[in-house]
Structure formats: C-alpha cells, structure tokens
C-alpha cells in the first residue's frame, strides 16, 4: 500500500497538466487513501456516491443502509461472502496491476510504460473493487486518450485471480473488446468479429447485466450489441495495454456517460416487469370473495396440499381471475382486521356484483349472513379502537372485558400498556392538555362473544351455528350508554366548552390530580416487582411526567401526544384478533413484508435481477 503517497500526490496532480485529472475525483481518491484519512484529524471516512443510474434500484437501498464507517471497515475486504459486497469499482487498483503500467495520482488514468515488443509484454489492471452482482447492472466508460504505437488496447472484465500479463479476454474468466481489430474475446486467444475498431478520441463503454448474464459495449454512445453471454461470478473491470504510448482514462460514474445508461436501466426494468407480470398467479384454495374471507384463515390442510404439487400451466385469463380473487380476499381481510366495516360492506357488494352478474338470491344471503357475523366483530373492535384513540382507556378496557373477556387476562403486557396510557391521559387531563375535539361515541349494539374458541374445529360449520346463537346476546343500549356517561362525567373528557372548563379549571384539576396520583401509586404497586426491563423502563418513562409542574412543556411532552395512542390501540386490536384465531397482522401486510425481505435476501444472495425491482418504490405510492 502506498499510504502517504496517495494523499501527498493528490494536490500535485491538480497542478500538473495531467489529462487524467478529473474535476470530480474526490470519491475515488478518498477511498484509495482511507488509511490516511483515519490518521488525519477531523476527516470522517466517506462512502463514494452511487452512480446515478443505480439510484432507483434495491441495491441503492442496501448500499445506503451501510454506514460510512462500516463501509470503510468492511467494504474493502474482497474475501468476504459475496452477499456482503456493496462497494462498487471507483478507480483502478494501485496494487492489482502489471508493473508495465503507470497509474495517475487519481487512479483513473493508465498508461503503458513497457517495451511492447511481444504479446508477453501485455499488461492489464483491475479495478479497486469487484462488481457486486447484486447491483443488477454495472456500466463504465473508457476514454482512449492515446492509441500509442499500435493501439493494442483491450477493455473488459475478469475474475480476481486472472493473471495480469495478458490482455482482457485471453484467459479463462476474462472477457474483452480490442481496439486494433474490433474483435471480442471470450476466455480465449481467438477473437470473434464484434464491433468497429477504436482509437484515440473514442469512448468505449462496457455494460454487464447481471439479470440475464450478458455484456455489451458502446462506442461513442452507441450500443454495439451483446458481446458475451452466460456471465456469472465475481468480476472486476479491467483494461489491458500492450504498446508504448497507449493511455486510457476510466469513468466509473464520476462523470456523465456518453451512453444514456439511465434509459437502458428503464428498459431493463420494464423488461423484467414483463417477465414478472407473465408469471401465473396460483388459484385460491378458499372459496372466493366475501364469503368468510377472514373467518377461514386457520384452515391449513387443503392449502398445503393444493400448493405442494407442481403448478399446472395456467392460462393468462385464469391467472388474472386468480389474481383478482386473491386481491379481493386480501383487501377484505385487511378491512376486517382494522375494523373498516363500512368499506368492507361496500367492497363486498361491489365485488359480488363484479364477479357474478347473475348472483342468485341464495348466494347473496349466505354472504350477508357471514358478513353480519364479521360485522359484529368489526364493530366491536372498531369501538374499542376508537375508545383508545380518544384517550378513553377505561372505556376501552371495559368494552374489551365485556366482549372479549379472555383477552386482557391472557395479555397482561397489553393490559399494562393500557394502564400506563391511562395514567398519561389522566395527567394530560389535569394539566389542561386538550387534543382533538372528542366525538360522541356511536353506541351500537355490543355482542357478547365470551364463548368464542381460539381453535376452530374441522366441523366448524355446526359450531359456528351454535356460536352464532350464543353470541347474539345483545346488550341493552341504555346500559351501555349509562356506563359511558358515568365515565365521561368522572373524567370530564368532553362536552364542556372552553369557557366552562376554564372557570372550573383549578378546582377540577386538583382533584383530578389526586386521582391520577392514586392511580399512579396503584400502578407502581402492581408492577414494582416485575423485573423485566421493558416494564420498568416504561414505568420510569411514564412516571417521569410527574417531575414537571407543566408536563405539556416538558421534554416528556411527547408522551402526551395522542399519536401515542395508536400503537396501544393496534396492540389491543391484534391481541383480540389472535384470541379469535386470526392473524395478528393482516395478510396484506405480511405480503408486503415478505416481498421486501425476499428481495433484500435475494440481493444478499447475489441475484442481480432483484436490484431492478424495488418493493417500496414500485409497489407503494
């Protein structure tokens, strides 16, 4: 390594009239002199900017997720698992070169300094990093500064262990395009007619496509067509020179390219999407549409059988129908999960209408029967959610205990979270912290569901009928209203206009404060002996509100933010769903998570095509 050399000559290269000196060589030189940077006082290690044609890829996300420090520590290690490679070639390697070659200070220009008598005088150089296949597409351009005596210039790429006394393409694991004859060389001393010759003043581009394992060259911005196929493995950009006077300069993306590589990326992405869209979607194994979309989720056996066999060819129309049916189920279960009951009803109607124009009355009946059952559940969960989101924690707890009596006893941590939230709400109330104008709780009928099993048997049809009979015990509305009213009186959560509450403010506050303190004491007593760190830290955080005379202006005021009710509401909703044997997370969300992780892991396993799709950018809005 030329540790002090690199930084020492950098300023020099700016003065010298070296044609190779680039205006934007910062990225490359910062990397080559990393060891110096660490010694130099305040300079932080930096990560080279990603070439712009890769900006929208999944690889970009992987690249950006690696911190500059980690990049410096690990990025340079070429021996690690290929999946961990994120560094891209940014310059030529000062070490990985034939001695006949001279490298400019910015490590971008190479000139031949040998005798150039025979082919044994050929000299090649590799880039500082290999190309990570998971980048999907890699492109670089080489300016021919001088063709020298003969212009025996080769441009290409090769494996790590290919010897550098030869021009690119002459060895196994080596590929090149040569200027003197325009031939392409694929791991062989015998070239194939490929493109035009190239000479002084020309710009030659080289593009490796890891999606389909091909490479093509460009000359002065024109695509010359595919030169190589079946490429795989870890490859380094490489050039080779052979006669005196030859000189080239590389562009690894620090400057604009002659060739519109961004457009090529767009085409590549579109080609990949055409492939993705051509994939058949498997049929549903459940009955389609609104019928029990969410109820039937734990009936696994037939699902596995249906998908373990090799899928038979599916026609496009069938695949599209499968896709629509699948999406309908996903949307329905999503709506049901979050308790969007009105949307679910409207959607279900639309879907049925669209699916069958001649839907018989009986089918409609069935759908409505099943739906009313889901509907009850949704309304109940929606009501509980609204109570939490309103800050009315006591009400949420009471409703949960009535409708889903097993949930809180078996989910003590959620109960704890609710109580902590309640304490925060009490503090918020007595410090006059008012948020959203509270809405009147819509009091619908509440359904008792305490006999709902978490396991649904095979013969659940009969059970469902029994269940239905049992759960249709409707609470009287006035009882419910009374409960809410009592609570609202006690907590003074709404219905007073501003002036009224101001007048009573101080008096009210002191008694409310005492009540909050009593409740806080109770909470502390109950959990003092719970040694789990998350419990204790939550307690500490919650009680720290008391340290401030006006919590609303304190550093802890974020706790008072109504937005913090949402996670509590979500946890409770999930716990209720789990108690009913439903997934804690809607299938739609799992689909997204699975797609995201699968793409990321594909990248880590070197699947280049995965770089060209981006779950977040392609599938979200």
């Amino acid at each position: 390594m030329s540790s002090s050399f690199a930084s020492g000559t950098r300023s020099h290269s700016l003065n010298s009239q070296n044609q190779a000196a680039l205006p934007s060589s910062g990225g490359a030189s910062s990397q080559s002199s990393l060891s110096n940077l660490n010694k130099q006082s305040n300079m932080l290690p930096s990560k080279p900017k990603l070439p712009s044609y890769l900006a929208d890829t999944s690889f970009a996300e992987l690249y950006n997720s690696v911190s500059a420090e980690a990049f410096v520590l690990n990025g340079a290690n070429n021996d690690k698992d290929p999946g961990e490679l994120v560094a891209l070639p940014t310059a030529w390697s000062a070490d990985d070169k034939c001695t006949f070659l001279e490298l400019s200070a910015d490590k971008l220009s190479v000139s031949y300094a040998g005798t150039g008598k025979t082919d044994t005088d050929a000299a090649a150089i590799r880039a500082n990093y290999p190309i990570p296949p998971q980048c999907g597409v890699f492109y670089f351009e080489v300016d021919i500064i001088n063709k020298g005596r003969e212009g025996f210039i080769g441009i290409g790429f090769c494996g790590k262990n290919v010897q550098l006394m030869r021009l690119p393409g002459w060895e196994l694991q080596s590929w090149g395009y040569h200027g003197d004859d325009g031939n392409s060389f694929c791991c062989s001393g015998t070239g194939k007619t490929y493109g035009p010759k190239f000479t002084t003043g020309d710009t030659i581009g080289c593009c490796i496509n890891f999606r389909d394992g091909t490479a093509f060259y460009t000359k002065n911005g024109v695509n010359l067509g595919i030169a190589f196929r079946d490429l795989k493995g870890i490859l380094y950009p490489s050039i080779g020179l052979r006669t005196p006077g030859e000189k080239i300069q590389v562009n690894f993306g620090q400057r604009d390219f002659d060739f519109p590589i961004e457009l090529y990326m767009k085409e590549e992405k579109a080609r990949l999407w055409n492939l993705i869209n051509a994939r058949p979607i498997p049929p549903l194994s459940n009955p389609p549409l609104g019928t029990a979309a969410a109820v039937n989720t734990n009936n696994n056996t037939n699902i596995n059988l249906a998908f373990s066999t090799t899928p038979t060819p599916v026609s496009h129309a069938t695949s599209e129908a499968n896709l629509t049916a699948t999406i309908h189920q996903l949307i329905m279960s999503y709506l049901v999960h979050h308790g969007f009951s009105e949307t679910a009803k409207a959607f279900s109607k639309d879907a049925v209408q669209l699916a069958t124009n001649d839907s018989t009355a009986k089918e409609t009946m069935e759908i409505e029967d099943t739906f009313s059952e889901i509907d009850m559940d949704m309304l109940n969960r929606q009501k509980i959610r609204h109570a939490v989101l309103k800050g009315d924690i006591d009400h949420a707890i009471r409703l949960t205990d009535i409708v889903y009596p097993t949930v809180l006893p078996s989910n003590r941590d959620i109960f704890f979270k609710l109580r902590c939230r309640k304490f925060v709400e009490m503090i918020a109330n007595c410090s006059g912290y008012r948020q959203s104008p509270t809405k009147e709780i819509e009091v619908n009928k509440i359904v008792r569901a305490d006999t709902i099993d978490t396991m649904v048997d095979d013969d659940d049809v009969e059970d469902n009928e029994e269940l239905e009979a049992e759960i249709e015990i409707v609470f009287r509305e006035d009882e419910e209203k009374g409960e809410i009213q009592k609570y609202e009186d006690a907590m003074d959560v709404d219905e007073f206009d501003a002036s009224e509450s101001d007048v009573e403010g101080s008096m009210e506050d002191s008694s409310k404060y005492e009540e909050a303190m009593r409740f806080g004491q109770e909470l502390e007593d109950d959990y003092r002996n719970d040694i789990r760190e998350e419990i204790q830290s939550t307690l500490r955080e919650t009680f720290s509100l008391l340290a401030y005379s006006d919590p609303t202006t304190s550093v802890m005021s974020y706790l008072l933010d109504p937005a913090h009710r949402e996670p509590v509401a979500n946890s409770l909703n999930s716990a209720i769903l789990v108690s009913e044997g439903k997934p804690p997370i809607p299938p739609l969300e799992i689909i997204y998570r699975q797609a995201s992780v699968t793409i990321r892991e594909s990248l880590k396993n070197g699947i280049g095509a995965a770089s060209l799709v981006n779950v977040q950018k392609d599938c979200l809005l």
Partner: protein
Amino acid sequence: MRPRAQTNATSPSSSSATKKVATREEWEKKLGEVKISKTDLNNLVMNYLVIEGYKDAAEKFSQECGLQPNIDFESIQDRMNIRNAIQNGNILDTNPKLYFHLQQQRLIEYIRQGKTSEALEFAQDELAPRGEENPEFLEELERTMALLAFEDTSQSPVGYLLHPAQRQRTASELNAAILTSQSQDKDPKLPSLLKMLVWAQNQLDEKLSFPQIRNLATAELVEGTTPASNASPSTSNNNNTSTSSIISFPPSLSST
C-alpha cells in the same frame, strides 16, 4: 488482437453450491424489521379501489381510514379512460416530452439530408408551438436549429445532434415509453406487489431455503423446500405436510 504466446490458464473457480437455509426464527425477525406504515397500506388499498373503479368502497374507505379525500372520485372514470388510451397504443398523448423528441429527431433528419426549407417549415409548424409551451423544449429547439448555421456541422458545438448516438437516444426513449406503457405504471400497485412476491420467492428459492408464502390470500408462511435438485422422492412427499403457522412478530412494528 490475437495473442501469440500461450500461457497456463487459471482454472475457473466452480465450487459446488449448497443451498443455504434461513430458519423461521431468523426470517420472522427480518419480517418484523421491515418498515411499513398503516398509512402506506391504506394508500395501497385506496389505490386499488380507485383505479379498479370501486367507487363506493373508495368513498367509504376515505371516510373510515381518515385519509384525506385527495382523490376526486369523479376522476376515477377519467383515469380509466387514460389507462385505456395507453393500452390502446396512444402513448404519445400522455408523454409530451417523448412526442417533442420524436419531432425533433425528424427535424434533425431533414437537416442531415440538407432539406433546409422543409426543416424550417417543419420547425415552425410543428415544433415552435411546443417550444412555446415549455421553455425546456424551446431551448432544445434552438439548439437543433443552430445546426443550420454551420457550414460544417460536424465541427459545430451542436454537432452531437447529428451523431448516431442522438438517434439511439430517441429510440431508447420511445422504447422505454412503450415498455412502461405495457407494464405497471398506470395499473394499480397491489397486483404488482403480489406478482413481485411470487417472482422473488421463486428466484430466491434457487439459492436459499426460506419460509415462503404459497397461499397469497392468507399469507401463511410455510417452510422452504428442501434443496430441490437433490431432494429424494420421499422427502418431497413429506413436504406436503410441512408445518405452517401464523407468524407472530410484534404488531407494534407495523404502525407508525
């Protein structure tokens, strides 16, 4: 060039690739780390409802999930019309930039052929109105017209316009627009998500054994297949009864 001296060839490195395994535990941890907000998913659903024309459901949804109804529900039909136009091949109507570049290319070809009067007429009739609409276009038009001012255009600063690369640039742009119009851009995002998942699982399955979703509607994770190439018939039978379970990573991660 062709080498005269033969040297020892390095043998290609070909290690027999064994399929790695991701355990359910590791996998679920990763699933839990994915950043996705409820708002994102709401938008995804809304996007489907709107584009596929579920007008009632879309309206209810915007009320219930508190999404600002920034979608004009009356425009649902308009969107459908635009989509149909693109699917029927009217790409240029929706892409003024591409349209301009194609016209510009035609102008360049007139100039190349020395048809100066045709070039002037064409520029005035077809391109100048476009330039008035868009300063970017006007600048490009002026640059193109500058070709006429030079005796030897190849030596002029705008000579690059006559280079074959310029033709290719325009052709690529057209190609990309056609491909885009055929793919997902004007379609709802949800089908793309599902298709991407099916494709991605299939790709990764060649390298890694990991918990997969086979039933897209229920999104249950089932254990990855045993290494497909060397799986014996007996093990593939056992796969039929592979365990599946409902994943249970913390739901708190799913909300913002």
